[in-house]
């Protein structure tokens, strides 16, 4: 990773990386503004926008009432006129009440208007299970929203990726859904001082290996790395591919790896039926059937509503144990 080689690399938190991306883009382009619940005076419900009100003022860092459908639509209208809104959802779980605006309007306006009105807008916020928040607050929306044409979906797993991808998202002329994780906001990682952008549709091989391909997105990438570490102790070298964006999907990198390993496990925190993992598996079959030595294995959240109990929640989510089991099954070792 280029972050490791840069001379002025610091260790910063995921939330700081997000803040740097937004602040740099706001300094660069006065059309960019940030709007959402508690983003300004409260300094961010999760402190992502801390200090931004002070730097950019209340005309560009804007608190809203609890009206997701309203302010999501406001952002889209503003984007139709050429502004570049960043709309923060406290949680993607709450984006469901804004479904009409974010699914009907943002991704389809350009098409329905015959190429006249685009929507250069970023919706961002926490996705995936938090800590024991119960079903309403534990949505992994990638399974739902990746079904929608016209969208880009970015889902970083490290501070470095988060910053580079968010800057790309803000500069994108099309709508981007940017999926963060409350569980990772405090994670630290290397981020260079120098400006960089990460293009969409380019996966990152987070760990190289020749025995089994593991594909994942967002927070579960860390569980994959944990599993790969343990498997390496048993002499199994996994290649962990972090997709980084779901749409566009870097299927080429995945196919390259599968051609090499012959085995594929896809790890996805959404629910299995019609999931991101299912889509990756289908594309692997379409493109690399002849290279596979076994079927593709999926590790998703269990097909139940997210429970509150810690024990039940842990059992439901993807984790290293499930991934190790899947890799072993895929490789006929279990």
């Amino acid at each position, binding site marked *: 990773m280029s972050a490791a080689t840069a001379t002025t690399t610091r260790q910063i938190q995921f939330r700081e990386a997000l803040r740097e991306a937004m602040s740099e883009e706001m300094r660069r382009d006065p059309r960019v503004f940030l709007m959402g619940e508690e983003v300004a005076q409260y300094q961010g419900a999760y402190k992502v926008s801390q200090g931004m009100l002070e730097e950019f003022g209340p*005309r560009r860092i804007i608190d*809203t009432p609890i009206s997701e459908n*309203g302010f999501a639509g*406001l952002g*889209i209208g503003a984007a139709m*006129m050429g502004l570049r809104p960043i709309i923060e959802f406290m949680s993607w779980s709450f984006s469901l009440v804004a479904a009409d605006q974010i699914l*009907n309007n943002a991704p389809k306006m350009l098409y329905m208007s015959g190429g006249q*009105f*685009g929507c250069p807008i970023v919706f961002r916020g926490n996705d995936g299970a938090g800590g024991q928040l119960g079903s309403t607050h534990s949505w992994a929306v990638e399974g739902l929203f990746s079904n929608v044409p016209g969208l880009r979906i970015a889902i970083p797993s490290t501070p470095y990726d988060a910053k580079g991808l968010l800057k790309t998202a803000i500069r994108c002329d099309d709508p981007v859904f940017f999926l963060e994780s409350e569980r990772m906001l405090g994670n630290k990682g290397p981020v260079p001082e120098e400006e960089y952008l990460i293009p969409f549709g380019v996966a990152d091989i987070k760990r190289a290996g020749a025995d089994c391909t593991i594909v994942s997105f967002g927070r579960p990438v860390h569980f994959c790395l944990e599993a790969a570490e343990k498997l390496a102790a048993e002499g199994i070298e996994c290649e962990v591919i972090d997709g980084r964006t779901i749409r566009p999907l870097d299927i080429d990198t995945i196919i390259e790896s599968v051609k090499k390993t012959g085995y594929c496990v896809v790890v996805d925190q959404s629910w299995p039926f019609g999931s991101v993992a299912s889509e990756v598996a289908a594309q692997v079959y379409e493109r690399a059937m002849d290279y596979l030595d076994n079927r593709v294995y999926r590790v998703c959240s269990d097909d139940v509503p997210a429970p509150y109990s810690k024990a039940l929640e842990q059992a439901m989510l993807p984790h290293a144990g499930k991934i190790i089991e899947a890799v072993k099954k895929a490789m006929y070792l279990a």
Partner: protein
Amino acid sequence: MTMTDPKTALQPVDRVEPRTRLKWLRDMMLIREFELRTMQAYQEAKIGGFCHVYIGQEACAVGCIAAANPDDPVITAYRDHGHALARGMEPRYAMAEMFGKSGGCAKGKGGSMHFFDQRTHFYGGHAIVGGQTPLGVGLAFATRYENEVLEQGAKRITLCFLGDGALNQGALHEAMNLASVLELPCLFIVENNRYSMGTAIERGTAMAHDLSTKAAAYGMPYYQADGMDVCAVYNVMKRVIDRARAEQAPAFVEIKTYRYKGHSMSDPQKYRSKDEVAEYEANDPIRRLADALIASGDLDEKAFRALSQSVRDEVRDAIAWAEQSPEPDPAADLYRDVVREPFGPYGPTTPPEMCGHEPGAVAEE
């Protein structure tokens, strides 16, 4: 602000030349003729999908848009033909859109309910009831942002039209609250035609007899206009717009109007009486303005007939143009205009043919 007695003369219009009122007459006649031909084309199966005509309501769009500046953003719901034409979209691009042709205002990708015209600051045609209202607030946000953050442009206001049915959508209430707390110059213009599909307003809307309560809940001024009188609409809107522009604040306007035809092309209209429809038709905004202009000596029967002929010709030409406009080509067009920055299967975005023309100035073939 009170309504004029519909049976008496039109409201006098301050500082408006007869020439301008003649233009309003022609605009309303053009919309009427356009939609009569639309209905015909629908019967002939040249138009598919859902199609909602505006016949009877023409004075609303024409009066409001006349009172606004040409660069004030306009947005509305799915009953959008009148607004698009009043804004200056040439009928040919509107008709071609409904015919699903590549020359349509949205290249055949939007249809009757999704007209758009960047040139005339017409932000659509939106088919989810109430869904356009947060967008309208966003347009108003953007005009203010342009003035105050980007320090450019003159003060603008946004005309955000909605039907009475949208009064009961959460989106509208969120939008009005946001416009109020963020102080955005968005005018919520309710075209109250008394019905949402087959539901009379009293059956679906609390306080239907006094919609000023809706405005009061969000601290907005409320205005009312007689939608069967284009001059009354203009008079009210001129004041509303001037004030909203100066104060950069929202307002709520109820225009009392009526649609003569069914909700869409398939509506047996069991929910209202023929007498009720006839009563409104007798009070027709086009006929009334024509009569008033004749009475004041600004129009005579001969000139009126010539005007009728000219709109008939214009719409006939529009239909002919739409018919010869090519069908979109699935191989070339299906995957275009999805995104501005192409990736994967998506091709580039190109503006519709319409955008190559100055509004209202179509080159003759």
